[in-house]
């Protein structure tokens, strides 16, 4: 039992995400391959949309990985290589969308809501008046002393 548990823990410890990149796609130059690999992790596969092309086994993702490596081998900068795909499939393929006029709400919307909520809470808390202490009326005083001096309610 203990051995099995240890074994399971060891397997979990060494489990790393496996990319779908096949050996035949990889570039011979490790520096270029590293760049291509990093870029492909941030590019969305348009077939299985919540995977990057680096993770996806879709045939089109493979084509796009190869195209990306071709562009990089041809001397494209990272920006140009990504731009090549964005020109065809749109900004949607960027898993980290660029900050633009139409993505402002996406980038800063949650922050704006947090600030608005915080501001509202601050105004509310600061505007609260402490409860004013007023003396009891003579009748109330009499009632209180009667209640405190007897065990019976009413």
């Amino acid at each position, binding site marked *: 039992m203990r051995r099995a548990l240890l074994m399971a823990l060891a397997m979990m410890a060494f489990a790393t995400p496996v990319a779908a990149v096949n050996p035949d796609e990889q570039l011979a130059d490790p520096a270029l391959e590293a760049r291509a690999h990093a870029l492909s992790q941030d590019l969305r596969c348009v*077939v299985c*949309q919540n995977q990057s092309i680096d993770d996806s086994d879709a*045939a*089109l993702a493979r*084509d796009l990985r190869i*195209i990306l490596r071709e562009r990089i081998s041809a001397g494209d900068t990272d920006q140009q290589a990504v731009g090549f795909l*964005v020109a*065809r499939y*749109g900004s949607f393929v960027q898993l980290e969308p660029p900050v633009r006029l139409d993505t402002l709400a996406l980038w800063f919307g949650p922050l704006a809501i947090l600030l608005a909520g915080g501001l*509202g809470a601050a105004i509310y808390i600061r505007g609260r008046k402490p409860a004013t202490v007023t003396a009891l009326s003579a009748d109330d005083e009499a009632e209180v002393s009667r209640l405190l001096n007897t065990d019976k309610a009413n």
Partner: protein
Amino acid sequence: MRRLLFLAPVAVLVLVLVGFFFGLKRDPSLLPSMMIGKAVPAFSLPPVRPEDRGFATTDLGGEPMLINYYASWCAACRIEHPLLMQLREQGVMLHGIDWKDKPELGYKWISERGDPYVRVGSDESGRAGIDMGVSAVPETFVIDRQGRVRYRHVGAVTREVWETTLQPLMVKLRSES
């Protein structure tokens, strides 16, 4: 007035929920095309039919036409195929590109089921499709008289899609100079 202000967060929540509710009806696989209004990227594709000259961008323009991406491995292409045959009979300029497929298989497909295309080319590597932003087959593009992309339809062309979207657009494009 101050009481109403307390309702503001609730109002915002309701607005967001309404937005999300309508968002549910959107199909996330329908991505906007980057090609609308742009010229079809140049391609020159080898033939699918043996003894044919294939399909190239020089075949485009003059009159509005359709480019249909298909493949022998594509299930939804079977659904739209009978309609494509009817369009061809009606004289619609319909060209085909056999995408990410062996040309022999693409040819087998059109010779067994019927060949709806005027020109048909083989895009075995898929590059011509990728240049057009094709993500899956079938996809159908409406091309205007200048050879520019005007509309992209993702998925099978149904009678409804043809009658309500593609046909009216092609009629409109025909009247453009």
